[in-house]
């Protein structure tokens, strides 16, 4: 009985936790479908966190989101210069970008907010219950008493899936990641597509960070992205490089984390490390059990110019 009462908060927490993960993973998905693995995603997220905090304090949440997105794109742009112009290794460049962004945001935070930090003074966007829909028992509040970002995600998933499969640009993106030479032969400007994809990933990474700050935590702290960029990359693999799959995989992760929180709150007398490891063990089990084609884009991770 008690457990049933926990269902709604559990589902609610699942979606809430999944939202920033899904944004980041969808961004990474687009980048990977163009053949670029972006380990700088973590950096884009933390940049988004910081940009959002800074701008929201000045101009309110809407400006905060915009600047968060732009901050993620700025980090992504530097990454793109290394990967596409200098044609360096994607993995090293991405790792360095993450380091750079963590350092930059930490430094600026310190400079602008001092050692005492920004506290919880940032305006946030709280949950907004969709009239009517949120009244549906159990799932209503879970699905429709969320922040506006989650609703944006509801829209982004089908839009992105549609774009990827029903537009020429989406087709071009996929072709670039699968077989660069074929795309070139069809007259597609491969570097341009990759630029676009990397910037998109940066934007969504930034959005993910902005969501963390403005729709969830309400403040910033060094390293608050806490490895979400890497988890997002795992989510893309778990989602088998499809838009809907990635969204579902993000939800699975969200649910696993929510379940972890709930387990601990249930006062079960087990080592807490067991709960903390739970989402990752679950992922391994799912990967083994849910069989299917593993379909990494064929050009993924290849250095530009090495063909």
């Amino acid at each position: 009985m008690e457990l049933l009462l926990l269902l709604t908060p559990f589902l609610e927490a699942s979606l809430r936790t999944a939202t920033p993960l899904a944004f980041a993973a969808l961004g990474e998905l687009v980048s990977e479908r163009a053949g670029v693995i972006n380990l700088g995603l973590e950096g884009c997220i933390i940049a988004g966190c910081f940009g959002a905090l800074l701008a929201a304090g000045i101009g309110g949440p809407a400006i905060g989101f915009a600047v968060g997105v732009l901050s993620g794109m700025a980090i992504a742009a530097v990454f793109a210069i290394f990967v596409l112009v200098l044609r360096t290794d994607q993995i090293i460049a991405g790792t360095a970008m993450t380091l750079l962004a963590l350092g930059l945001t930490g430094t600026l935070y310190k400079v602008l907010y001092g050692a005492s930090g920004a506290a919880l003074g940032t305006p946030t966007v709280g949950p907004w219950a969709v009239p009517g829909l949120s009244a549906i028992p159990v799932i209503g509040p879970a699905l429709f008493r969320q922040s506006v970002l989650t609703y944006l995600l509801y829209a982004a998933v089908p839009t992105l899936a549609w774009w990827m499969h029903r537009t020429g640009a989406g087709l071009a993106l996929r072709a670039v990641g699968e077989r660069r030479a074929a795309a070139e032969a069809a007259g597609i400007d491969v570097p341009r597509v990759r630029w676009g994809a990397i910037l998109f990933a940066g934007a969504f990474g930034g959005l993910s960070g902005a969501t963390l700050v403005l729709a969830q935590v309400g403040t910033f702290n060094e390293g608050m992205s806490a490895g979400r960029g890497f988890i997002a990359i795992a989510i893309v693999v778990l989602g088998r490089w499809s838009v809907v799959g990635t969204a579902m995989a993000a939800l699975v992760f969200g649910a696993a984390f929510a379940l972890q929180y709930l387990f601990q709150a249930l006062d079960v007398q087990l080592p807490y490390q067991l709960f903390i490891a739970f989402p990752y063990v679950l992922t391994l089990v799912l990967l083994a059990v849910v069989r299917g084609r593993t379909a990494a884009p064929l050009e993924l991770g290849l250095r530009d110019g090495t063909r």
Partner: protein
Amino acid sequence: MDALAALWDGAFGSAFAIWSATLVRATPLLLLGLAVALAFRAGLLNIGAEGQLLMGAVGASAAALSLGTAPRAIVVLAMLAAGATGGALWSGIAAWLKRRFGVLEVISTIMLNFIAAALVSWLVRGPLQEPTRIYPQSSTFSASAHWPFLIPGQRLHLGFAIGVVLALVLWWWFERTAGGFRVRAVGAGARAAASAGGVDVASTVMRVFLVSGAIAGIAGAAEVGGVTWALYEGLSPGYGYTAIAVALLARLDPRWIIATSIFFGALEAGAAAMQRDAQVPAVVVQIVVALVVLGVLAVTALRDKQMAQRLAVDAE
């Protein structure tokens, strides 16, 4: 400027900086870099060096604690073996998942990294906790489990020597032996290796996965045996991830990994000095490190372009 001077001094400015800071920090990166390079050479994306290091540390600590005050040579050898076994067991899980269920190692190894961290966190509060059961760590190992130092008065330990020897052996093995050549062939063109060379690709890859994990495990053993003398949580600040950059920057060449691991070791040692001596905040240090890595990357990229042009000349 002060900061950069501190960076240099902290890395190479004194005997202590070189032998007790830079090279000590380079040691896990060297071993892990080799583990990563071996796997990548075989086309295996082992991102799990971090977790394999932790499990190697667990294995070596268990060996050290259970052997107590047995003769040093025996304890150290046992720690090496147990560390390698711990790492190989951990990479073996990913290998098994890959072979049995086709789970991509890129993701399974990342998940196993998180799980290993949780496992260590539990072990140091459970079976391997020190006897007073207060602190989340093991007892300090007895002296016979302390790996020998290489230079009197300095902290550089046996692990580094093992790393250097392993690097040279691995290089020799890649270049001169049939087994090493097979691994390279599998990584560079699995289909051709199977079709033209009759290589059993799947089992080659599995073996590489285990050996890669074992080397990473030795890194863990070296860290507890040479540096910390006890098992702690938070043993690695992400060495396993840095090692990927170490290996890639060396173009997966074991000899160059000696150089790149020292480069990253120096960066970390120098970065600490920047904080200590120039009062540069930790976050700024991160920026400097990132910029140095990006700088090196840009320079090598430009050199590559020139190389490509020179190759075109040769092709004439």
